[in-house]
């Protein structure tokens, strides 16, 4: 019994699940109907699911997809990529410019997506080479694209904010006719399953953690740290391109200045809340996705409480500080000690009663 409690307590998913649970309880107490899902009819006449729960899952999907890519980078490079939002803007711009030069059909959309993936992987590899080969701290290496990325997107767009509109794109950003679940959620789940299968079934997941825990040992055991790091950046590049394209499809235009604005900060927070140490090592993809949902649930809750949109950041920060404090090693140790002390006292009491009898 104690062993299993210890095992559960030491799991990375305890804190994120616990905080998500608290958020859910808080919302249910405030408004019992908060999570009710209803079936509504959208503009195109299809029956779709709607409600706060769906909007949380839908709104968080872009951040969740990027955080799936960010998690292996955090794990093996011991740092974060802060250029993801800027690279997503570049990928979105490429996507739109390919779409605008052709008639929009399914093969063209796939072609445009592949193009944006290629471009995004190229930029990601630029970061990856700086980090893996030149051994520069990830945050500093990606600062280059962070400051230049949106300007490159501006240059691709020619300074305008071009729009694309087509029922096909609307079905990617919204609902596929006949399926009541928003498409971004389906894409997110597909990504999560695909990448966790790749990381679980191949040795890549293990190698990533080994490189993150101790690079020297990894090298001695015949793992090439450079290659592992580069692969993690390639995965991140694909994730970032997908997130960028989904966002473009959802809003129907590319605005290089505001596309996924401040998403890099949200993504890093999602990874941290999800139980992956920002100092590298063990990682949990599922935790990162839950982290993204926590952030989005928090935002939706604050909006539902009629907090002005600009002030949401402050409340978000306060809650995040609380969550991070709860998951800090010092507080964990304190609770474990408290638990032990109370347990010991009970044991002593039992002893006393036994000896007395």
């Amino acid at each position, binding site marked *: 019994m104690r062993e299993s409690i210890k095992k559960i307590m030491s799991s990375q998913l305890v804190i994120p699940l616990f905080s998500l649970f608290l958020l859910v309880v808080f919302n249910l107490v405030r408004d019992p109907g908060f999570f009710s899902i209803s079936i509504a009819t959208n503009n195109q006449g299809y029956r779709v699911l709607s409600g706060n729960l769906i909007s949380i899952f839908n709104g968080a999907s872009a951040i969740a997809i990027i955080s799936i890519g960010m998690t292996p980078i955090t794990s093996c490079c011991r740092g974060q990529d802060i250029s993801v939002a800027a690279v997503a803007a570049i990928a979105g711009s490429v996507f739109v410019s390919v779409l605008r030069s052709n008639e929009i059909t399914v093969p063209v959309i796939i072609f445009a997506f592949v193009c944006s993936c290629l471009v995004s992987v190229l930029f990601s590899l630029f970061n990856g080479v700086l980090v893996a080969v030149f*051994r520069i701290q990830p945050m*500093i290496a990606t600062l280059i694209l962070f400051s230049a990325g949106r300007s490159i997107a501006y240059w691709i767009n020619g300074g305008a904010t071009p729009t694309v509109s087509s029922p096909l794109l609307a079905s990617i950003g919204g609902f596929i006719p006949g399926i009541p679940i928003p498409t971004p959620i389906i894409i997110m789940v597909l990504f999560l399953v695909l990448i966790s299968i790749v990381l679980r079934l191949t040795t890549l997941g293990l190698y990533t953690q080994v490189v993150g825990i101790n690079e020297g040992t990894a090298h001695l055991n015949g793992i090439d740290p450079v290659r592992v790091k580069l692969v993690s950046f390639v995965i991140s590049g694909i994730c970032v391109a997908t997130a960028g394209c989904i966002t473009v499809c959802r809003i129907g235009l590319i605005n290089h200045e505001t596309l996924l604005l401040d998403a890099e900060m949200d993504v890093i927070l999602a990874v941290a809340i999800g139980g992956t140490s920002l100092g590298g090592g063990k990682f949990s993809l599922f935790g990162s996705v839950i982290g993204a949902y926590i952030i989005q649930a928090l935002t939706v809750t604050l909006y539902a409480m009629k907090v002005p949109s600009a002030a949401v950041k402050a409340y978000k920060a306060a809650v*995040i*500080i609380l969550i991070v404090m709860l998951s800090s090693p010092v507080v964990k140790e304190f609770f474990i000690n408290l638990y032990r002390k109370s347990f010991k006292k009970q044991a002593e009491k039992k002893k006393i009663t036994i000896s007395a009898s």
Partner: protein
Amino acid sequence: MKKDRDLLTGKTEKKRREPISNTTLLMTITVCTFFGMYLLSMMIWKGGFLNPQQFLDLFNNNAYLLIIACGLTMVMISGGIDISGGGITALVTMVCVVYLEDHGGTVLGSILISLGIGLAFGLMHGILVSCFEIQPFIVTLAGMFLARGMITIVSIAPRTATQESFLRLKQARITLPGIGYYGKTGNFIPAQIEPGVIIAISIVVIVAVILKWTRFGRNLYAIGGNSHSALTLGINVKRTKFFAYLAAGLLSGISGYVYLLHTGAGDAANAAQAEMQAIASNIIGGTLLTGGVGNVIGTLFGMLSLKTITNIVIASGLTKPYYQSITTGLMLCFFILLQSLILAVREKGRVRLLPEWMRPGKTGKTGKTESH
């Protein structure tokens, strides 16, 4: 002539392998690059670059950035990071303006408020980082969100300060004797600096002195180099880290007041991306994010180089805004690669026996913290 000799001796020292610390070497490169760049642009574009006022405007416009970067230097030397500087700066401007306008505040009161806000944020960051051992990136990110969110709680619309005594302070200019330029009509216009520049320069000097000659400053280098060996040497790691973040917060508060003196307005968009520019100034100035290496004089020249490149881009006719950030990115890329190459070459020269991945400075240190 003297400069040449210095350079020559520098070269011979390098050949003899007499120890120049990484800090000095990286700083020298930055200082030389800045002067080279400025002299070159003086020769090529002349015009504005020959005007001393344009050089002083680099300080006038960016005094606040310099102050944030100084605080960040201390934190980065100790091996941490503080990205809340821009947010705190903007919050201070807004709170001070609202206080001066709506609550009939005095100048002294607003200065105290700015210091208080800075200290409060520094205290929060310090406690969370040193006592709770949370990653500094997350803590200061939350601090940034908190500050930026609180601005809009204080006031959503941008405000301008109109109080008289504050305006008098804001319009105060210090005329530098003997330096100036000739206007279009041929009259002599003396060069001017704002009071904020004096504050910024004195902070640079104070921080330089603290880093060089006080126990606290040397402890910062020790912690950044290797916090475990610093602990075994009897340095109070937690307390030193706490004071580093406290100082960074206080300097961000001062920076907010300097920003207010420069623009006189409170706005949620004030000092946007200042934290990233401050990090860039530090990197160009030779402060490493890994800690233990850096100098505040380097930060000063890093900031100047960063802003001069923008001026050069504008002078060369590329006025579209995206050219500026692309060149900033290229410049960062250049400096980062240069530093990594120089450090790699120097380390290879010293420990040739060890292969690349076994170097103690890079893999060993972080590996230890992981196993901890």
